[in-house]
């Protein structure tokens, strides 16, 4: 299929192959050329072989084809007259004016990584981006400020007297960051990903004062007081003594809880110690930290939290149908739970596991999961009350979480798409107690419209998650409590995290687009420099996920998407703004194998997303991924980032570290 001029510009260095039979004597244009993205397929089918001397696209645009030539033949020097030399100024193609003059040549590439050149008195910043699109440079001087705007460019040579600017030179590197979500493209290459700050590159407005120095403004602080629990037992009264949590006789407690909700028929409570990990459990609906406010409201003040014990909610209807959709994680816990994910129990945690039974057939109705959560919260609330009363001396660790703004840095917003289709696909936003239910509003009732939370509100239990899609990719309440993307962004001094915007994913397409248009307008008004959009699950929600990225991207805001995708979660829709995607997949096969929390967003993903966003915000490009899901793309990205930032990124283990579950043996990894 022939390509457009724009596509040709994106592929100037790629081989030139005729897309269709072309007559001798014509002047070659983009419309005569095949899309380089299709080459792998053609090569695979034996229909195309690229010789070593094949010309690249920028060499043939404007050149003359000697003889009539068939489709899918690579253009070599003997077939073409008037081969274009990109560094040649004499270009008579009226279509492309100054853009070609700025295209790259070999010397630009060389200078690019040469640090000594960069720091010499003639500060020269050479940027060899692969894409050459029209470069707009306007140099104006006023009030002693030189303002240079460069949309995109390469081979740009700037000379500025040393005493006139304090701009430091970006530590340029030719790193490649590749979009690692299968269906998505994009990629990268010569980013000016610099260590100092994203502001310090050619694309920046040279603001004023010394941008090397990170300005910090503390917005608010949150203290987490940790109470260590080593034993949980049942007794007469719910209380915390030393490191022992006693919970009131479950029969009475559960009865009280069941009575609060009409459709909840029964509830049992079980204490799971590490010795019991091989026991059977129904599908896990949620994992919740047990925490309570000691001072202030959610997102500030002091929160008390139990370490070593978590609340786990499971359930079925009275016919034994799991309260879940698209998979469920029932089975022996040690085979079905991916321990230590942000949203999982950690290995060693004691689980206080409630099992709820609801009226038959209500599992897929909104009231079913909601009632289960509310009833179970009666129990957690009783523990919270005990935690409030616990003696200060039992605090083992006071953790300080600080929300800072960095006014000189690029403003970044995190957009978290949460499920809002109804039934279990709902989230309670901003309860009174951390991960409580009281006082919270379901995002479904809020019309799934964007709601802004501060990063500390997110990390302080501001989201009570009902969401219950694929067990491997759903974000539990504990996930938000330890949300890696929020933590990564909040602690990154190179950006200015403005907040975390939650947007629900409604069921109907019309509502999806309604919501994402509002999101786009919100982003526009916020005037941010970059955005990261995350989602959980896959399939239906990818429609609005893609639309969110589009609404943000089309407003000129660099945006990175994060989702589980890989094989099974391949994006069903896409658009040109989805050129920087992070795949949260961890499973070896790239599938939803119903291992609880396996494919959720982890710190390693957050680091990659941040690297992509910084690359994009600095004007770099993200390379296109391979056509099929290939786990090596992620590995390579990790290596690139490790090398560039001189850090070690810990990769999470996956299901292969667990004994095989029944479903893995029988369905996913049959031998």
């Amino acid at each position, binding site marked *: 299929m022939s390509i457009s001029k724009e596509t040709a510009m994106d592929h100037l260095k790629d081989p030139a192959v005729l*897309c*269709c039979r072309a007559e001798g004597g014509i002047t070659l244009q983009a419309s005569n050329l095949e899309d380089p993205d299709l080459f792998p*397929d053609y090569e695979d*089918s034996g*229909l195309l072989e690229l010789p070593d001397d094949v010309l690249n696209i920028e060499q043939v645009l404007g050149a003359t084809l000697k003889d009539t030539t068939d489709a899918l033949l690579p253009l070599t020097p003997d077939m073409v007259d008037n081969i274009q030399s990109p560094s040649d100024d004499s270009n008579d193609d009226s279509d492309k004016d100054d853009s070609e003059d700025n295209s790259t040549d070999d010397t630009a590439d060389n200078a690019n990584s040469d640090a000594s050149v960069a720091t010499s008195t003639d500060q020269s910043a050479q940027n060899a981006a692969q894409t050459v699109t029209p470069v707009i440079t306007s140099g104006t001087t006023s009030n002693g400020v030189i303002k240079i705007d460069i949309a995109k460019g390469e081979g740009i040579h700037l000379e500025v007297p040393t005493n006139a600017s304090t701009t430091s030179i970006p530590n340029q590197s030719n790193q490649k960051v590749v979009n690692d979500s299968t269906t998505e493209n994009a990629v990268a290459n010569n980013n000016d990903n610099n260590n100092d700050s994203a502001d310090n590159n050619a694309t920046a407005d040279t603001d004023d004062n010394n941008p090397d120095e990170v300005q910090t403004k503390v917005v608010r602080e949150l203290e987490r007081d940790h109470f260590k629990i080593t034993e949980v037992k049942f007794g007469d009264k719910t209380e915390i003594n030393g490191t022992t949590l006693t919970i009131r006789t479950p029969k009475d407690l559960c009865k009280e809880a069941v009575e609060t909700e009409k459709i909840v028929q029964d509830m049992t409570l079980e204490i799971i110690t590490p010795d019991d990990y091989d026991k059977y459990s129904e599908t896990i609906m949620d994992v919740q930290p047990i925490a309570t406010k000691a001072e202030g409201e959610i997102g500030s003040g002091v929160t008390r939290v139990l370490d070593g014990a978590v609340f786990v909610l499971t359930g079925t209807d009275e016919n034994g149908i799991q309260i879940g959709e698209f998979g469920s994680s029932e089975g022996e816990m040690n085979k079905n739970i991916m321990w230590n994910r942000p949203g999982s129990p950690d290995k060693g945690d004691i689980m206080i596991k409630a099992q709820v039974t609801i009226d038959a057939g209500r599992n897929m109705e909104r009231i079913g999961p909601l009632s289960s959560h509310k009833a179970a919260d009666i129990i957690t609330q009783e523990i919270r009350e005990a935690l409030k009363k616990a003696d200060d001396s039992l605090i083992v660790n006071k953790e300080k979480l600080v929300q800072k703004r960095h006014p000189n840095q690029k403003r970044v917003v995190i957009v978290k798409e949460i499920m809002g289709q109804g039934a279990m696909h709902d989230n309670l936003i901003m309860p009174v107690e951390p991960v409580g239910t009281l006082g919270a509003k379901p995002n479904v009732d809020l019309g799934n419209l964007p709601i802004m939370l501060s990063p500390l509100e997110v990390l302080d239990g501001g989201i009570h998650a009902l969401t219950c899609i694929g067990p491997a990719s759903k974000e539990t309440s504990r996930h938000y409590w330890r949300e890696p993307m929020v933590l990564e962004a909040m602690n990154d001094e190179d950006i200015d995290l403005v907040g975390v915007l939650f947007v629900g994913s409604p069921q109907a397409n019309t509502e999806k687009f309604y919501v994402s248009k509002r999101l786009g307008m919100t982003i526009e008004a916020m005037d941010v420099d970059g955005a990261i959009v995350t989602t959980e699950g896959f399939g239906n929600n990818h429609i609005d996920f893609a639309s969110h990225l589009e609404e943000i991207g089309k407003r000129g805001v660099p945006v990175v998407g994060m989702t589980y995708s890989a094989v099974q979660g391949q994006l069903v829709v896409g658009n040109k703004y989805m050129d920087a995607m992070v795949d949260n997949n961890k499973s070896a096969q790239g599938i939803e194998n119903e291992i609880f929390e396996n494919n959720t967003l982890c710190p390693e993903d957050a680091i990659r997303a941040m690297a992509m966003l910084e690359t994009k915000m600095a004007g770099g490009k993200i390379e296109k991924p391979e056509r099929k899901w290939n786990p090596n793309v992620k590995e390579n990205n990790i290596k690139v980032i490790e090398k560039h930032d001189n850090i070690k990124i810990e990769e999470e283990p996956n299901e292969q570290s667990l004994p095989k579950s029944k479903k893995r043996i029988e369905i996913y990894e049959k031998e």
Partner: protein
Amino acid sequence: MEKVTILLKQHVGKPDKPLVEVGQRVKRGELIAEPVGLGANIHTSLTGTVEDITDDAIIIDADEDQCKEDFVHIPDSDDYLTDIENAGIVGAGGAGFPTSVKLSNKIPGGYLIANAAECEPLLCHNTQVEERYADQIVRGMKYLLEITDAKVGYIAVKKIHHAAVLALGKACKNEPKIQVKFLTNMYPAGDERVIVRQLLGVVLKPGELPIKAHAIIQNTETIKRVAEAIELRKPFIDKDITLDGRIKERSTVFENVPIGLPAKKFIDAAGGYINPHGDITVGGPFTGHTGKESTPVTKTTGAFLVAMPYPQVHKKIGLLECECGGQEPRLREIAKKMGSEVVAFQRCKRMVLVNGRYRCSLPGICPGQADAVLAMKKKGAESILTGTCQD
């Protein structure tokens, strides 16, 4: 179960002579008619009882239970050409020329070309078959290369059929004698003379056959049926067809449907009509003809297309005939159904009379029509109806 209408003429030549009697039991794949002179064997596509034999057709009352995998095999032979003849294979692309006759020409050093153009608009069964059965088509081509002594086999395909192109490319990747070649994306790229011109650079005169350029061209479905005959001993009793137009499930392909079943069965299977609807066209929009709900599938049926109702154009119109589109009788039929009065008739200036039939001298490279248009205007034509292909 249902009536199967097996036409006695599904090929170039005279109608076949029935070999069965009314009341006789016949098994799927059984030979029921044989050619008189030029023609091809005809087999029943379903098991049942012969209910009627008319001048045109053998009507079979098919049994309720049918097994598609089970059929009477063609006689054993060690000669591919005999297999093809026994299987009753004819050009499935629409022409219906007996394949064994065409292949009896040896073309040493010549070109065996698989016509994978899927030339007519809307039709898509060939493309789909090429995607799914590329290997079978390539194997069929190897048999044809052997039969004809051709030095090389080309698969002529439009590049726009991306998936088919890739599948065919893969299938012949390791076949040194078979290559994929591209046709331009236009109608009538699948015309034999256009293929010869584009692939071999030889311009055939109107009426000349590809053999003149040392080429034999076979439609891909024909080649698939050849492979079936040789490998599975299966006679030509099933057909691939496209259903499209004003039906609920547009672009539906039915693979291997028993020959003899009526159009309505497939219209229903594709969700039924979208009302209002017009005529049923049998074959492609350009070269098809008007059919009925009872029109049976034959060896050359490519499609059943349900048209919209004819617009009523109560005007004086002129007809402009082109070899690649509807011919004069079809244009007159359409004009009549539109309520138009035909006041003039012209042929495109490329049309030349060859052996009693008007042929185009340069198919696919169309001239201006100013002369013809002015001539018709002179005779009072207010509008023109034409089956031409290019702008």
